[in-house]
Every structure is written in structure tokens, then in C-alpha cells.
């Protein structure tokens, strides 16, 4: 894992003291809320429905056990004993007091963490593949590149006031676990025909009010020119992105209106200029950063044998564990989606336990996934049973990864001031309706994603089944969408028709899953059957 150098630490510590002074001035009345609001947002502090909310960055979703324990400590000391892992691989605390915020940021800084650029019209936390550095299907570890992008984008003076917020994702595999093409810029590390490492750039994706799948802008940027190409992409956006209308200000609108070819042409022009400025990090710096992401000392003698005589354990191994590049090891995903639970929520005790497990069994590493789960990336197979037993005791062993109850849900109207409808109660009810694990596994991979408003923090456009909560004359109403995907087969879900009540939309989901089981052909997932059969057949089943 990357470790702060003196410069990183000083930058974060200085920001904490700067914010401490700003809070003091706000409480003393020297700053009005209008003056203070942009300052607190730059430090990840929002004002939500019930209290201040602090969003803490987890760079590319990677953290160590010491950092995870600090997240538990903050939940316990400053919040109400829990935190909420988000769809941006971050964590949010819902009950923060303004007067505590500087101390929380100081605590975070002590373990090389912060909340900088988790709000505002700047480059947000870089997201990545939660299996990075562990999966066999990647061509390189994307994290050094995510870290370089993090350093480049942190306090970048030119990109601190973009037309709108800006999100990057970096992956290095043909399997997309990061919804890469639904980001403002998606980067896929690739090899060219000569075997050299570089990056494919997809620009102008996103969800929200106007969802778009990012078109490919360039098929190969040499790895050592990645930063200057990214800078060129941002410069064109910063110059021409609309600032007169926030609903048309994201880069996806610019790319769409110019057309990918014209946008790309302008980027190339800027890129040619950027290359003369010497902006790319020197080779030594690339090497220094990459050094932090070397493989841990795997046991080369580790066995692939597993005792699966405990049937519950066997199901968990089958459902929640993924192939590791190192024989004898597995990637274990801890589901934060218990039956009737709140997706992404974890108590301080659960956070501490996951930290302990990482320290003891996973070379001190954890990952946060955009699906609001936690990953132990490097687990020896012979340790899986002990891990599972401890998780099970703590309510952290649902064997439902990628199944219908492994839903994404934004905080919705229970917490969020932007929301129009509650999303968590829907996730809870669906989780109970489909509680039977045999039934879930019969349905197979089914990505269910729920948002409480059009801003789409719950990724409803990317759900095989998506739900969008809307306000209909003061009453919560839910639109059902089908056919989305955030994976390598990225697509946008379409609305089925008129909306439903809370119970009505759950009945409709049952109808479409029943139709899927009736119509599916050998080996088809829900999304495959939907694509083959088409929307009309599903609409007919839902609305008659």
C-alpha cells in the first residue's frame, strides 16, 4: 500500500489546522454559512437531513487494518457507532457535530487519511477494481496508476473549480468491476501490439439526470504519457464545459454535444501541447510509487484443498470467494447486506472485526467495493473456514455476493437532503422477500440497484434491475428499470412504465424474476435473458 511521504503528511496536517481555524471562526460568527459552506464542503462536511455528514475518502478503495480501525474509532467516538460504506468506495458518517469535525480530520490524518475532495466541483476520489493486485485476470496492478492520478489531482490548482464534479475509474482487466465506463473518465490499462503498457481512455460517461456510457476516445496512450493525456482531457472540459446550467455541466454533455470525434480532436491538439510541458512524472517517481504495490510475501506452498463438509461454509466459499492469482489463495468478499439490513452499514464492532481479520489473514489489506461490500484480497484458502466462522458470529457472512439481495442502495430520504424517496426500506423489504438463499442462487447473478433520486448515487441506471424513487405529489413512488449493466457489457437500464408504490414495485420485481426463470435458456443470466427477450415481454408481464 502507498505510504505518505513527508510532503503528503504535511499537506494533510496543514489542511486540518486550516479547517480547525475556519470552524472556530464560523462558531464565533466571523464567517456566515454562505462563506463557510464551500470551506466545509472542501473538507467533505455536508449538512444533511439530521445532522452534518462527513464523507471520508478511501483512495481507490484500499486501506489497511490501522486505517479501518480508525474508521471504527470515529464511528464509536464521534458518531452513533456505525458508518456507511458508499458506492464511491468511501465511508460516510451521518451524525457528526461541527465542533468535532477538526478533531476527526486530525484523527484521520494520523493514519494517512482525509476527506479532501470528497465534495465540490473537483476531481473526486479515484475509484478502481476492488480485486486489483489479487486477481489473475488483470494485465497490471491499476493501483499505482490510481495513486499517481490521486497525487496529480489533489489540490490541482487548475481543476479545483471545474464546471462540475469529476470522477475517474482505473481498471486493468477486461472484466470491469468498477463501472469504469460510467465515469467521467474511465481508464483501462492495456498492452499495445508491441507489448507495451498503456491506457485506453473512455470519456463522458456517468449516471445522474442524463446517463451515458462513455465512448472510447483513444485506444492507446503510452503509460508514461497518461497524466498529460488526462490533463488534456480535463483542459478541454474546463475550457468548454457549461457553467451556466449545472444540469448540463458534466463532461458527458460536452462530449455528447461536440461528438466524441470532435472532442477527441481537441484533446489531441491539447495533448500535443501538453507533451512539451514535461508534466508526466519522472520514471523514478513511477518506480517509487509502484514499489508500494508489490505482492505480499505469499506462501508458495499454500494448498488449494478445502474442507467443504460444512454446507453453509461451502455455499459462502462458492458465492463470496473469487479466484486469486496465487495458487492456494482466494479473494474473499464480506457482504454488508444481511437479511433486512441496511446496505453498506457496519457497526464499529464489525469494522474492528474486519480490520482484525485483515491484519491476521490478508496481509493487512482491505478493499471497499462500489457495491458497498468489503474485500479481504489475499486470503489463504486454509484460513477461510476460521474467517467465515468469525464473520458469521458477527452477522457478516451472508453468502449473497452478486445475488438479488446484494443490492446497492443510496441513503435515500432517510438521510439525504437531495432525495425524493426512501431507498433503504425497499432494499430491506426485497432482502426479506427473496431471503431464501436457494431461490437467490437459482436466480443467479442479478444486480439490483436503488436510488432515492435522479442523481443516481444508487446506480439505478446500471442495475440489471434498477429502482428510482420519485416524489409524486408528496408521496413516494418508484419507477422500475430493466437492462442496465455497469460491467464490461455496460448498458443503461430503461424505465418499464408507470411507477409503483413501495410494495407494488417489489411485486413487479417478483414478476420479472419469475418471467426470467420461465424464459431463460441454458447459462443465461437475468440480463442475458432480458436482452434476448426484450422489454416488451417484460412490460406485458408487469402491466398486463
Amino acid at each position, binding site marked *: 500500500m502507498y505510504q505518505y511521504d513527508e510532503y503528503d503528511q504535511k499537506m494533510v496536517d496543514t489542511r486540518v489546522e486550516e479547517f480547525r481555524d475556519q470552524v472556530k471562526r464560523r462558531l464565533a*460568527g466571523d464567517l456566515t*454559512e454562505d462563506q463557510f459552506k464551500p470551506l466545509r464542503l472542501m473538507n467533505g462536511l455536508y*449538512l444533511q437531513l*439530521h445532522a452534518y455528514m462527513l464523507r471520508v475518502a478511501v483512495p481507490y478503495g484500499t486501506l489497511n487494518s490501522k486505517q479501518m480501525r480508525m474508521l471504527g474509532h470515529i464511528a464509536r467516538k464521534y458518531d452513533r457507532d456505525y458508518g456507511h460504506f458508499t458506492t464511491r468506495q468511501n465511508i460516510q458518517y451521518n451524525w457528526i457535530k*461541527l465542533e468535532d469535525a477538526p478533531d476527526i480530520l486530525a484523527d484521520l490524518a494520523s493514519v494517512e487519511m482525509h476527506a479532501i475532495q470528497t465534495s465540490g466541483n473537483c476531481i473526486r476520489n479515484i475509484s478502481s477494481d476492488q480485486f486489483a493486485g489479487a486477481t489473475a485476470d488483470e494485465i497490471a496492478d491499476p493501483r499505482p496508476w490510481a495513486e499517481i492520478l490521486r497525487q496529480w489531482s489533489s489540490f490541482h490548482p487548475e481543476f479545483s473549480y471545474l464546471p462540475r464534479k469529476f470522477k475517474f475509474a482505473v481498471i486493468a482487466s477486461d472484466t470491469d468491476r468498477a463501472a469504469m465506463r460510467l465515469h467521467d473518465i474511465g481508464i483501462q490499462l492495456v498492452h499495445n501490439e508491441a507489448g507495451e503498457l498503456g491506457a485506453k481512455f473512455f470519456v463522458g460517461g456517468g449516471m445522474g439526470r442524463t446517463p451515458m456510457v462513455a465512448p472510447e476516445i483513444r485506444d492507446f496512450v503510452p503509460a508514461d504519457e497518461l497524466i498529460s493525456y488526462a490533463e488534456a482531457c480535463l483542459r478541454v472540459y474546463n475550457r468548454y464545459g457549461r457553467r451556466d446550467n449545472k444540469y448540463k455541466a458534466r463532461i458527458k454533455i460536452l462530449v455528447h454535444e461536440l461528438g466524441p470525434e470532435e472532442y477527441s480532436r481537441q484533446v489531441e491538439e491539447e495533448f500535443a501541447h501538453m507533451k512539451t510541458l514535461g508534466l508526466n512524472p519522472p520514471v523514478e517517481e513511477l518506480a517509487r510509487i509502484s514499489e508500494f504495490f508489490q505482492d505480499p510475501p505469499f506462501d508458495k506452498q499454500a494448498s488449494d484443498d478445502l474442507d467443504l463438509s460444512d454446507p453453509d461454509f461451502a455455499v459462502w466459499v462458492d458465492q463470496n470467494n473469487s479466484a486469486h492469482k496465487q495458487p492456494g489463495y482466494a479473494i474473499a468478499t464480506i457482504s454488508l447486506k444481511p437479511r433486512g439490513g441496511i446496505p453498506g452499514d457496519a457497526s464499529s464492532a464489525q469494522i474492528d472485526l474486519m480490520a482484525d481479520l485483515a491484519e491476521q489473514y490478508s496481509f493487512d489489506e482491505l478493499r471497499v467495493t462500489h457495491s458497498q461490500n468489503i474485500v479481504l484480497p489475499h486470503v489463504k484458502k486454509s484460513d477461510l473456514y476460521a474467517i467465515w466462522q468469525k464473520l458469521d458470529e458477527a452477522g457478516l457472512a451472508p453468502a449473497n455476493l452478486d445475488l438479488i439481495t446484494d443490492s446497492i442502495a443510496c441513503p435515500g430520504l*432517510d438521510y439525504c437532503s437531495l*432525495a425524493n424517496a*426512501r431507498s433503504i*426500506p425497499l432494499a430491506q423489504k426485497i432482502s426479506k422477500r427473496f431471503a431464501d438463499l436457494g431461490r437467490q442462487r437459482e436466480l443467479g447473478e442479478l444486480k439490483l440497484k436503488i436510488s432515492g433520486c435522479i442523481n443516481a448515487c444508487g446506480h439505478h441506471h446500471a442495475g440489471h434491475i434498477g429502482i428510482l424513487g420519485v416524489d409524486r405529489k408528496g408521496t413516494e413512488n418508484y419507477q422500475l428499470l430493466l437492462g442496465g449493466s455497469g460491467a464490461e457489457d455496460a448498458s443503461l437500464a430503461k424505465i418499464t412504465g408507470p411507477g409503483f408504490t413501495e410494495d407494488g414495485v417489489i411485486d413487479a420485481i417478483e414478476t420479472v424474476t419469475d418471467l426470467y426463470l420461465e424464459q431463460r435458456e441454458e447459462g443465461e443470466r437475468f440480463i442475458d435473458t432480458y436482452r434476448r427477450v426484450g422489454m416488451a415481454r417484460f412490460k406485458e408481464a408487469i402491466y398486463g
Partner: protein
Amino acid sequence: MKILTGNDLKTGDVIWWTGLDWSRFVKDATDVGDQGEAILQREEAARRVNSPYIIEAEQTDDGPRPGHIKDRVRALGPTVRPDLTLKPADPDAGLWVI
């Protein structure tokens, strides 16, 4: 009726104007008639409330009930965590929101 709400500057708690002070309980809220703007400007300037605003509410036997669901959620707390609401002993308190 019109009532005033906002958040406590230090704690962020949801608060309601009682006519004399601010309360965490919406049942204490009072009808401000056409005085809302003047009160909220005065109170915000005195840093007794953050981001206050005026809402429509209905007077009921249990006190004022905010007209919009968002403010009813604010008044109670998250419906998905009854233990964290202002009525932790009442498992059906969330029904008031809907």
C-alpha cells in the same frame, strides 16, 4: 400553519422554533404566521440556527405535522433506524412519517 425549522449550528440537530427558543421536538413548534422571514433572519444572524426555512404544517392533536415527507423524516429521524429516532421506544413511530 407555518412553522420554522433549521439545524443547530454546533451539533447539526434538527430544531424547530417554539416562539421563544428552538426545540428538537416538532410538537413544540409554533405557528409564525407572516413573521417567519423576520424571525429566521434574526435567529440566523444570532447563530442560534443554521440554514433555517419556513414550512407548511398541519395542526393535529399530537402537534404540528410537517406537510412534506422530507420534513417529517427530519422531525422523527431515519425510519430505518428506530433506535436513532426521537421516539426510540415506539417501533411504529415511522408510520407518522408516511
